[in-house]
């Protein structure tokens, strides 16, 4: 047997190979760092994660595969309790693989949540999805537009849209959380950054007070209890990235969609004790929404962006018409036909608006229907205040007609529950609350800082 002293040369060889590997690593990393998609790992990664990824070495892939297999197996059998843990491990082993983060967040928020019948259980899984992206994915991949867009999507679509039968519960829970955090719709931005509220917003919700203030200044006033505002915040973060990065275009698209949504739904009357959650149009946001469209078109001159802009202009003109703001509505319509003329000829504005209101409402989105009903109710109150009872009755009748027509187009209980309008009495009461000077006796949160006004 050879003596171990005869293998002394292995030690310098080992050091030589290590030095070669270190030199080679620097050469590999250099071109990677020059690529715009490359995000260096954060400096303050948890030691346990660094240890795991280094210690597993090449076995990391096998471990990830095994975890994936278990996750899929459990989900197929609807045994989903473990999936938060498994998602955490899988993403921790592949922290810079953005598709994996996006998949797991989406899976929890969409696929798993609907396995539960209790809305609170569903909300818990939607929150798991949000937390995975917000608290973990964006920690490992800061300001990554794809992840920011995915996070915004959970707010915009999962919470904000009506696909899930528990969407109202999600909206109420988000509004409750934000009310508890910010004390209402609009925080005091001047003192927010240095307050404990700002610190909590930063640490728990990852909302930067300075970023919130800037967004509100440029595109507000925004109500932070609404899901669209959160989608705006996260997609705006994505818009700040380099245009060439994947996901930036989608962030621009999401941003103008959410500005449209804020225009349609940006004013919230929320009173959890009375079960009131009614979001109606915030007409003052119209110029900001138009600006968001213009910015997107300026950055990405895409046909689909032009089409979205044209649709929004038409929709906004009809909403303004319902609220009795005829000069602004006509002006908007004129902008529409000047910029996007119909080759077959455009009708007069009144004819266009009438056709929109008298047509089939079954395909009309719920948000638009709320805007139409609320607009006519507001107009009715305005006419009443001006001493025109006949005009008031006429417009109130129109509101009721649209409400009934829309509700009749809901084909089932579930459809009605998901996409139906709030009770007409509630909408009338809410319109009166807004019209009257706000008082605590109203019970609602109409006192959101805006001066008393008709509309």
């Amino acid at each position, binding site marked *: 047997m050879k003596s171990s002293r005869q293998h002394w040369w292995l030690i310098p060889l080992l050091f030589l190979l290590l030095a070669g590997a270190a030199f080679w690593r620097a050469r590999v990393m250099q071109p990677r760092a020059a690529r715009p998609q490359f995000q260096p790992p954060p400096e303050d990664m948890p030691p346990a994660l660094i240890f795991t990824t280094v210690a597993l070495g090449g076995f990391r892939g096998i471990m990830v595969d095994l975890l994936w297999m278990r996750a899929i197996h459990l989900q197929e*059998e*609807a*045994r989903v*309790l473990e999936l938060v843990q498994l998602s955490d491990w899988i993403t921790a082993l592949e922290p810079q693989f953005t598709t994996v983060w996006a998949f797991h967040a989406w899976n929890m928020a969409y696929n798993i949540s609907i396995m539960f*019948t209790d809305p609170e259980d569903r909300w818990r899984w939607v929150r798991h999805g949000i937390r995975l992206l917000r608290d973990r994915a964006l920690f490992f991949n800061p300001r990554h537009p794809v992840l920011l867009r995915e996070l915004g999507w959970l707010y915009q679509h999962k919470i904000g849209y009506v696909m899930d039968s528990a969407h109202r519960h999600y909206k109420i829970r988000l509004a409750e959380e934000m009310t508890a955090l910010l004390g209402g719709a609009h925080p005091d931005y001047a003192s927010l950054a240095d307050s404990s509220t700002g610190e909590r917003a930063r640490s728990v919700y990852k909302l930067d007070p300075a970023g919130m203030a800037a967004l509100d200044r440029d595109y507000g006033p925004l109500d932070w209890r609404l899901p669209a505002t959160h989608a705006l915040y996260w997609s705006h973060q994505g818009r700040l990235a380099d245009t060439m990065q994947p996901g930036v275009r989608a962030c621009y698209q999401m941003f103008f969609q959410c500005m449209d949504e804020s225009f349609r739904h940006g004013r919230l009357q929320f009173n959890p004790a009375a079960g009131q959650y009614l979001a109606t149009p915030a007409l003052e946001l119209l110029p900001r929404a138009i600006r968001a469209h213009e910015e997107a078109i300026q950055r990405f001159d895409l046909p689909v962006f032009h089409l979205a802009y044209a649709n929004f202009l038409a929709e906004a003109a009809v909403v303004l018409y319902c609220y009795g703001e005829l000069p602004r509505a006509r002006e908007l319509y004129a902008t529409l036909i000047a910029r996007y003329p119909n080759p077959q000829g455009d009708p007069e504005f009144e004819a266009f608006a009438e056709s929109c209101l008298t047509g089939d409402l079954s395909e009309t989105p719920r948000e638009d229907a709320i805007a139409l009903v609320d607009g006519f109710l507001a107009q009715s109150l305005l006419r009443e205040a001006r001493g025109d009872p006949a005009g008031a009755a006429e417009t109130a009748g129109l509101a009721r007609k649209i409400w009934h027509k829309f509700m009749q187009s809901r084909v089932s*209980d579930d*459809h009605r529950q998901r996409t139906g309008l709030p009770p007409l009495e509630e909408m009338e009461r809410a319109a009166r609350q807004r019209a009257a000077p706000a008082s605590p006796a109203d019970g609602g949160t109409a006192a959101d800082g805006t001066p008393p006004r008709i509309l």
Partner: protein
Amino acid sequence: MKKLYANLHPVWALALLVMRRQWRSGLWLLLAALLAAGIAGLRLAIQGDGTLAGMARIWLSYSIAWTSFLLSAATLAIAASSISLENAACRLQLVRVKPVAAAQIWIGNWLGLMLINAVLLGIAGAALGAGVWHFNRAHRQPASELAALRNTLLTAQISLPAIALSNQPASGPSGLTVNPGGVGRWRITLPDTVLEKRPGGLQFEFITARPDQTAAIPMVWTAGLSGKRRPLSFEVSAPPRKPSRLDLPADFLQPGCTIEITCANRHPDTTTALLFPHQNGVTVLAPAGGFAGNLLRAGLIIFARLSFLAALGMTAGAAFSFPVALLLAGAMPLLDGLNRFRYTAGQHWVRWAFQDDAASWIARTLDLAVAAASEIVRLLMPALGRFNPVDLLTGGRLIPWAAAGQAGIVLCFYAALLAGAGAWLLARRQLGMAEI
């Protein structure tokens, strides 16, 4: 009797010798410390689903998996080394020159190892029980969370399939079809073993005619005791191809009662019919036991698995020297586990790796070789995956005594076969020569 005692005396003596040796080596302490550290560490490391019951179930699941893995690995390693290393160190000769049969040596070593396992498993079981007790005493948790824990984990439920009523025209051999706007009916009579005043559940799973249908279907379920009271009603939306559960209150289920169940399909699309399979379409989850009994039976199943692994390691150790014995003993359960995927792979084990040349003779030969090896492993091994109590225990399902008994009988039968083979090999094994 005297003869039996005379035969057993050396077996016990050897078993105690094995235990004493492991105690002196500090292995007991090391394993006990690793078990305790793993169980306690998992409590701190894992994330739940946001509920107390979910956290407790995940912790319990991972803790049992950790206990099972650690004891299995240690059992295989100790068993594979006990005879082979004794032989290599020439200690076995000291025993073989005494009037002790090879079978007695084999059984004595195996028994000693299993006594160690029994003690360690007892420690782990006590730690798990204490952990669950701690969850149950979480005073800061809301009452609803504690109730959910007691109803899901601390109550062992049996799953009873409801019978689709035969007078339904849409009831076919594959299941009961419920058309949009229609109503499906089922009936079930609970056994007398069901516990009173404990909550239960109604679980259902269905498919639709459209494979792309993933959205939740609106439906109304009712469950009532026949002719006694107003039925319970549940208006829910549930996705296809996933089991969904409705909670039945504590005062609803009674031993021997008959439950009438209906489901109204409220989907607006007239083409979306729901098909509830006969086997697991609609099942009633009825309380039939507690957590302590379930944990005990789970422990017995794990103990039966360990007894088989100990026998496997001992027999490998009787046939081969240490590293080879350990590799063989470790490879067999691994291959047994991989065998579960043999049908998933379509029995084309190797061919996929050849891509463009999948029909080559090398690919086909390798496929045949791997398939043959897989078949051999299937015949030699008792499919250990069948005897896994974790899912039942953490899912709050009753582990019947029959399941524990079946695991004991099957695995002890395999262990007895291995014992025979091990004793035969040991009797014929050339003992190692001491190096001078």
